[in-house]
């Protein structure tokens, strides 16, 4: 049996867990058993996918006698599928391991346990699917299962609203993908991906497919302006599901985009990269700016997911541009950067969401303004969260820096592109990328500083307890992987080489042969980076200086009240809050984009009414796009509603009219 067969068996096992969980979910052992079984299946599937990828990713096809009778259900494991399956199962395994411990506190396990394995299996099947039918069915299984998980805590009206909006956006996205694949299949109607590859579409139809793929996959991934559901739905789910949705499901959406645009669609036009780059840059900057305004920790993380999706799309846009200009090496570099960031984001975003879940479990709080000082109460969570925060802020020597560095290197080879529009666009996109990275660092300092440092702002934070060992193990493994991918990036790049080769026609130069495990994307005189040595140098010089100072100068230490310029204030409310930390950035960037305004109502001296501070922020995308849309839909529905109360004669004449107009249309068409 081939690797693809075994992967499908693992997915079938995951699907089979669902009915089991439905019957057993009220038992005390159910949580551990279901999560544990899912963990083992994920690990097996992940190992299979990884070994296929490392073996070079030769395509293996499986046709099952399911689905549509004339094509069956086709599945295919090639380099691209294997890379994404590895990411999906890695994230799935971490979430399941975390769930073994965290899930015990779940009040309604029957709303989580049956859907979680289905969700993971759905994502696996999407990346394996090789015909339109099984692709779309798996996509919908993934969407519906994740919707059910979002609705797990449906007693909260905010969660119900989130679920509703998610359902609407998911239907919209699926519709777009359906149309995109329909156009790809063409009038011949060959829905197997092999047949689509054999008959490429071109010209205007190809442009339409690109647009639909951007809308369909982009709405699932969270591209601005289709991201509105994401910051509502991702935080609403239980935390390990949030980690899966943010860290992994958005990657499946990226997979769908890459599969359709790079694999099925054929040779790109030069202008294709323009919308991708524009949307990517806008998503990166707007996502993190909106994140900076949030005080809900999980919602902030969801906005940061939006930002990272933007970074990935910037990489994909560059790869498209290079491919259109027939620069395969540069395209491979940009593609590798995007895929590397896919892996990185899956690692650190899962880690951060799991950390947020640990904080939520320990304090019952998602609001940053009621946390503080958790570094003393939850020391291990604080360390791993710090690793995740540094990694996502693109700081060396962790993994987030490597993928951003590769993206910058891809921007630096882009003057070779001939198209004038891109010559203007690419440097600006590079600046946006740098801005997003700097803003992320600010946002992470804010989140970490307010939640974990300082003094506790509420009793719950002061009484917090470290989370359970299972959850800690999941987070420690993810943090270790963040570090490993940061100091040994050459191995990741080499593992991704088959994917880059199949998608862009050229692989990156092999990195594992480089001296000292450096990475050298093009040539050593051009650029190189060595995370391992950077880490070694930092550790060496930090410990050397600490040792020398303690040995030669002084090691005396005394505890005392904080200095605070001579006026220490015992109340924890005088600390900087998340809102006040963001105020300068809100004022600099938010005044235009969000119409952010601060209103201070300061009573005159002698007046005893309290002073008030109000912060006004507007979400222009919601107000400008979605509210009018909702109004228009409501208005139209009201008008159409009249059709319900007509007589039978009018209905018959309407049917007749419809028939005549359809026939007329057909007659004119031919």
């Amino acid at each position, binding site marked *: 049996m081939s690797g693809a067969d075994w992967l499908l068996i693992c997915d079938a096992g995951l699907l089979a867990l669902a009915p089991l969980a439905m019957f057993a979910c009220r038992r005390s052992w159910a949580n551990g058993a279901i999560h544990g079984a899912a963990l083992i299946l994920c690990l097996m599937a992940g190992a299979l996918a990884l070994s296929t990828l490392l073996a070079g990713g030769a395509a293996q096809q499986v046709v099952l006698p399911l689905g549509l009778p004339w094509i069956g259900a086709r599945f295919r494991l090639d380099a691209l599928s294997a890379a994404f399956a590895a990411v999906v199962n890695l994230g799935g395994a971490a979430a399941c391991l975390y769930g073994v411990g965290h899930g015990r506190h779940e009040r309604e396990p029957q709303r989580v346990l049956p859907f979680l394995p289905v969700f993971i299996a759905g994502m696996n099947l999407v990346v394996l699917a090789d015909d339109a039918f099984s692709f779309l069915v798996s996509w919908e299984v993934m969407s519906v299962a994740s919707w059910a998980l979002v609705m797990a805590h449906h007693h909260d009206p905010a969660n119900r609203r989130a679920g509703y909006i998610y359902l609407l956006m998911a239907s919209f996205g699926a519709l777009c993908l359906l149309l995109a694949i329909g156009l790809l299949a063409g009038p011949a109607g060959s829905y197997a991906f092999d047949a689509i590859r054999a008959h490429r579409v071109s010209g205007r139809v190809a442009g339409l497919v690109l647009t639909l793929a951007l809308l369909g996959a982009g709405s699932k991934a969270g591209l601005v302006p289709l991201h509105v559901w994401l910051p509502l739905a991702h935080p609403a789910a239980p935390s390990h599901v949030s980690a899966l949705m943010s860290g992994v499901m958005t990657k499946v959406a990226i997979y769908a985009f890459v599969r359709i645009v790079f694999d099925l669609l054929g040779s790109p036009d030069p202008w294709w990269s323009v919308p991708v780059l524009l949307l990517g840059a806008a998503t990166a900057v707007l996502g993190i700016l909106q994140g900076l305004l949030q005080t809900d920790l999980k919602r902030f993380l969801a906005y940061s997911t939006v930002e990272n999706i933007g970074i990935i799309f910037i990489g994909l846009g560059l790869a498209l541009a290079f491919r259109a200009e027939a620069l395969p090496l540069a395209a491979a570099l940009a593609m590798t950067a995007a895929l590397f960031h896919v892996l990185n984001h899956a690692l650190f975003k899962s880690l951060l969401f799991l950390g947020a879940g640990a904080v939520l479990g320990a304090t019952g709080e998602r609001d940053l303004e009621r946390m503080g000082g958790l570094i003393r109460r939850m020391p291990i969570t604080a360390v791993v969260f710090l690793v995740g925060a540094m990694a996502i802020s693109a700081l060396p020597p962790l993994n987030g820096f490597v993928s951003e560095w590769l993206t910058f290197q891809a921007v*630096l080879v882009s003057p070779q592109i001939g198209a004038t529009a891109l010559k*203007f666009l690419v440097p600006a996109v590079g*600046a946006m990328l740098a801005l997003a990275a700097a803003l992320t660092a600010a946002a992470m*300092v804010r989140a970490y500083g307010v939640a974990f440092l*300082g003094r506790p702002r509420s009793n719950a934070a002061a009484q917090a307890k470290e989370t359970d060992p299972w959850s800690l193990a999941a987070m420690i493994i993810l943090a270790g992987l963040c570090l490993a991918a940061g100091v040994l990036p050459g191995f990741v790049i080499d593992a991704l080489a088959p994917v880059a080769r199949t998608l862009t026609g050229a692989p990156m130069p092999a990195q594992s042969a480089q001296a000292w495990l450096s990475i050298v994307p093009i040539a050593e005189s051009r*650029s190189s980076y*060595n995370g391992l040595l950077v880490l070694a*140098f930092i550790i060496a010089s930090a*410990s050397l200086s600490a040792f020398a100072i303690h040995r030669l100068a002084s090691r005396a230490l005394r505890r005392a009240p904080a200095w605070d310029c001579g006026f220490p204030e015992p109340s924890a409310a005088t600390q900087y809050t998340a809102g006040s*930390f963001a105020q300068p950035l809100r004022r600099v960037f938010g005044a235009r984009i969000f119409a952010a305004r601060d209103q201070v109502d300061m009573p005159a001296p002698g007046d005893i009414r309290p002073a008030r501070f109000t912060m006004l922020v507007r979400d222009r995308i919601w107000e400008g796009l979605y509210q009018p849309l909702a109004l228009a839909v409501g208005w139209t529905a009201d008008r159409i509603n009249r059709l319900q109360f007509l007589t039978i004669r009018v209905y018959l004449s309407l049917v007749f009219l419809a028939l005549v107009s359809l026939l007329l249309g057909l007659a004119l068409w031919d």
Partner: protein
Amino acid sequence: MGLIRDLAIQGAQMLLVLALSPLLIGLVRKVKARLLRRRGASLVQPYRDLWRLMRKEVVLADSASWLFRVAPYLIFACTWVAAALVPTFATGLMFSWTADLIAIIALLGSARFFLALAGMDVGTSFGGIGSSREMMIAAVAEPAMIMIVFSLALLAHSTQLSTVAGYMLSSNVGLRVTLAMALIALILVAIAETGRIPIDNPATHLELTMVHEAMILEYSGRHLAVLELAAALKLLLYVSLIACVFVPWGLAPVGSGLAATVIGLGAYLGKLTVAGALLALFETAVAKMRVFRAPEFLGAALMLGLLGTLLLFLSRGGLR
């Protein structure tokens, strides 16, 4: 033989930046004092300050966590590693391929990340104000810096600082508009990043105007000494960066003999003196800005960097 020589140069470079950075601070203070018609402290005063701080006991706030105690050493280490990779008197540093210019900027970003966290650790309002403002300034300064790196990298076909310096030394540079823009932008960024007037005042202790000083307000003893040294290293790093890219004359090229190295050292000392004097002159001539003017100041740097990069994108085929 070559390996030993390279190692020696790398080691000498690391020790040199560490040894010279307090001197640069002393020089700037001295020149500033003379310009204000004061006599000023001696040039070696910063060394005495550091030594005295190191021997004092640390007074640690009750609410400080382990992060507060570890952060100074990490900040120092990141800054030192970054400073050790910028060519000062000789190009072709042994480990220059470890981190290119983008990574050096990011290493400084790591140092800033820890500094901002340390500012928030004790839980006082001044620490928070410093961290919040520092990250706001960095959010504009970092993209500007990346744009400058882009300009230089597109010209020199490399982000490797040694290669960039080598390219600037070669005869095919010529006068370029982009270079002028990059120089001005880099100076603006350097002023902001090192916390000098008009963005931040290193001598201030007026609470509401502090940025860097507010973050390190709770530090004392050896921790404060290490942080002061890191700040001095950062100033030296930016001066060296400007010197090695825009006035590379005198840099000992790869594989040169002792004479060239000595000339390189002399030239470097000369450049430091001039830069320190110019910085002092600039600082006495301008007034500190309001905090919310800083983004405009740095926005100019960002625009100059972006414009320079755009010019390069449009004017040439770029890297091959």
